[in-house]
């Protein structure tokens, strides 16, 4: 009898262990019955969901889910088929033919090449005053049409037939194909938009070609997307709904995430970020963006390169990222941040050149350079120097740290000037500053977006920097499709920046976010943006 009990118990134990193990395994990976994702991402109303008008990150996020461009981007930022299945590059990179797939709009209409041609010309039409029109200035006569100096039919985009789109560029632009994955170049349904120009302002009239449909858009409250059964890759889309409540406060969003009413929290409160990262309750994304200080090269003492270099060298970037920021940022090593590819060497740009900037300050060298510079400039003492920044706790802390570093490492007293955002921008544009902060997020994944900032007369060249040699190198890189030649020219240009230091890079940005373990398949794009198209939920 005892033996029977022992044997049965043993068998039951083994069986239950096997079952438990099996359950555990299935439990963690089994698809959840309810595929509804609640995303804490949007802090306020998206200003516009028509590609004609949307310019901000929030509008872009929604548009990337309800619309789709000619291509999409893979994890490394390379173009992969979207609405176009393939493309032929001809004429030395100046002509591209896109071949479209059989895809449908959410109202059942076929997606045609005419829809792209219509939308791109709509973007460029000066009457429509689209802010992102300049993203299509690569097209032949794109800029001229936007300036009223050419006609719509002169613009280098033409539907050869419903499935073939011919694009003619002003000059070879290898990143143009990737740029078609950007929301400003998404198509709109020509028939719908012609009939109702306000189609994009209401969920009821919204027509998309993306993986999701705009189900609800309640202003200042929420956006709800549902799966689009007509999407060409619908079989691989597992989420049935994505909810984006608009949450205006970081603390609130965090508490909602903790309470379980959100599956994702992207706006982690700054004061909690370091702690949450340490506790592994949050993750970090390396954003290909740069935080830097601008020297006004037209004003004394920063009209002298040695003085600029001395001030740059006296900044301890490692201390800033560790002690002031603490969210996984890294000290900048050059003028192009991490994450941007070098297309000739198939590596990250930052890996293909030496570090131009050292993470630690070099007070001895900095002092020596400052003295040499002052001698060169004929200065016996420095004029009053002030760091200008816009109202933000982070900018203030960085400015205070740099103020101390310049005092300690150079013996220079520095004032701080805090201004409201638009007043700050106005002063920066007018050149009313000596040193000022700025950040730069790439327009496209190419070193050029960081390097052509500093050409003579560039709209964003607040340093008023001018170097003909530099301008020539940028011009050379812009005139060819040969990646080797382009990358080489841009590397040389960056070396010039390292010599002249019109601006001094401080750190590379990160984004701290929280995502529940049961959410899988969330894609983080090369530019740091999120895509939920192929995300799914497993059992909690």
């Amino acid at each position: 009898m005892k033996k029977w009990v022992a044997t049965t118990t043993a068998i039951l134990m083994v069986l239950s262990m096997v079952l438990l193990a099996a359950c555990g395994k299935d439990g963690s990976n089994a698809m959840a019955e309810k595929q509804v994702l609640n995303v804490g991402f949007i802090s306020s109303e998206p200003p516009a969901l028509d590609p004609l008008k949307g310019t901000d990150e929030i509008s872009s996020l929604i548009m990337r889910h309800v619309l789709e461009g000619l291509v999409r981007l893979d994890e490394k930022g390379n173009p992969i088929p979207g609405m176009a299945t393939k493309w032929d590059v001809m004429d030395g990179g100046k002509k591209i033919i896109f071949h479209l797939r059989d895809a449908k709009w959410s109202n059942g209409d076929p997606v045609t090449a005419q829809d792209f041609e219509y939308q791109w010309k709509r973007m460029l039409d000066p009457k429509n005053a689209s802010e992102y029109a300049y993203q299509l200035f690569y097209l032949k006569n794109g800029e001229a049409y936007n300036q009223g100096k050419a006609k719509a039919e002169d613009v280098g985009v033409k539907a050869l037939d419903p499935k073939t789109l011919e694009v003619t560029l002003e000059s070879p632009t290898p990143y143009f194909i990737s740029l078609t994955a950007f929301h400003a170049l998404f198509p709109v349904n020509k028939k719908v938009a012609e009939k109702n120009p306000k189609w994009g302002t209401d969920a009821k009239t919204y027509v998309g070609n993306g993986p999701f449909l705009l189900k609800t858009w309640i202003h200042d409250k929420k956006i709800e997307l549902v799966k689009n059964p007509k999407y060409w890759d619908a079989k691989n889309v597992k989420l049935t709904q994505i909810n984006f409540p608009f949450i205006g406060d970081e603390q609130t969003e965090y508490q909602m995430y903790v309470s379980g009413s959100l599956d994702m929290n992207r706006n982690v409160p700054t004061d909690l970020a370091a702690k949450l990262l340490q506790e592994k309750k949050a993750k970090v994304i390396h954003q290909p963006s740069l935080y830097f200080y601008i020297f006004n090269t037209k004003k004394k003492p920063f009209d002298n390169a040695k003085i600029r270099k001395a001030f740059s060298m006296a900044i301890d970037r490692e201390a800033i990222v560790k002690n002031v920021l603490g969210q996984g940022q890294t000290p900048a090593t050059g003028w192009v941040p991490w994450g941007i590819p070098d297309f000739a060497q198939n590596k990250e740009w930052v890996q293909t050149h030496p570090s131009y900037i050292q993470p630690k300050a070099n007070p001895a060298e900095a002092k020596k350079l400052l003295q040499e510079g002052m001698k060169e400039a004929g200065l016996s003492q420095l004029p009053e120097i002030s760091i200008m920044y816009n109202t933000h706790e982070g900018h203030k802390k960085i400015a205070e740290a740099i103020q101390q570093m310049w005092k300690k490492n150079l013996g220079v007293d520095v004032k701080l000037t805090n201004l409201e955002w638009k007043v700050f921008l106005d002063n920066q544009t007018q050149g009313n500053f000596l040193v000022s902060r700025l950040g730069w997020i790439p327009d496209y994944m190419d070193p050029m977006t960081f390097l052509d900032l500093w050409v003579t007369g560039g709209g964003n060249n607040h340093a008023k920097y001018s170097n003909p040699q530099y301008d020539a190198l940028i011009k050379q890189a812009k005139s060819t499709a040969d990646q080797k030649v382009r990358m080489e020219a841009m590397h040389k240009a960056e070396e010039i920046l390292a010599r002249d230091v019109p601006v001094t890079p401080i750190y590379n940005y990160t984004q701290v976010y929280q995502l529940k373990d049961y959410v899988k398949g969330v894609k983080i794009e090369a530019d740091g943006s999120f895509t939920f198209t192929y995300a799914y939920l497993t059992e909690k």
Partner: protein
Amino acid sequence: MLRYLGQRFVMMLVSLWLIATFTFMMMLAVPGDPFTGEKKLPPETLKNLRAAYHLDKSYPEQYLYYMKNLVMLDLGPSIKYTTRTVNQIISEGFPASAQLGVQAIILSLILGLTLGVIAALRQNRIPDYTATVIAVLGVSVPSFVMAPILQKYLGLEWELLPIATWEGFEYSIMPTIALAVLPLAMVTRLMRSSMLEVLSQDYIRTARSKGLSPSRVIMRHTLRNAILPVVTIMGPLTAGILTGSFVIEKIFSIPGIGKYFVDSVTNRDYPVIMGITIFYSAFLILMNFLVDMIYSWIDPRIKVGHKEAS
């Protein structure tokens, strides 16, 4: 009476016109415009944009254009929220702001008056001390501190109420409490001191000596007079609650217009700045007018329309 109302109406319109004009001038004097951004736009694009919003015209032309539309009650398009007009922003956002504000006012009046009366009647006793402590806390703890505390305990720890967003009545409870704390404290303090003052008046003593029941003395003679100072502050207080709830709206993610009041200035969204300022001003002016009316109704000694009005 009708003549007085007519005069008041004209005065209201003049006040509104002055406010609109000053706001317009001040707005344009502030550096930066709606298109000043981190990334500079090409000059031609900027030109197209400015033309689209009539900002390429001279200031007087812009002013006349705006005033002409204002007379037609057209507040123009939002420049930042390109798909919406200011009329839409106000008509869609005001119901939430108003609901929150009205609830907060009702709560603060009911509780504040009750606490004030109890405190006065039980002067220097435990109910009085309790009411005083509540009043001091209410005045000294700002709503943006109170709100996260409520969220943490009522929402996250005890799971009694939703933390944020705006889906139904239960979502409005926490923001109402957070918003009501300050006016509640003010009403309590005002009511207490006013009650004490009235209670010490001769006519109350006379009423009591005539043998009226204490409840009759309080209800008939004391409350009616003691409530006057509270009514006086209700106009600006109501307008203040409705216009000043932007912090609460932000913390609780309420789709009101509070945030536009602040954000429109940051964005230099000119039509929204103008529209919301005018809307709120009209509201404040109207509230003050209503308070005057209520005032004369409660205290017949104060007659509307009399020039001396004292």
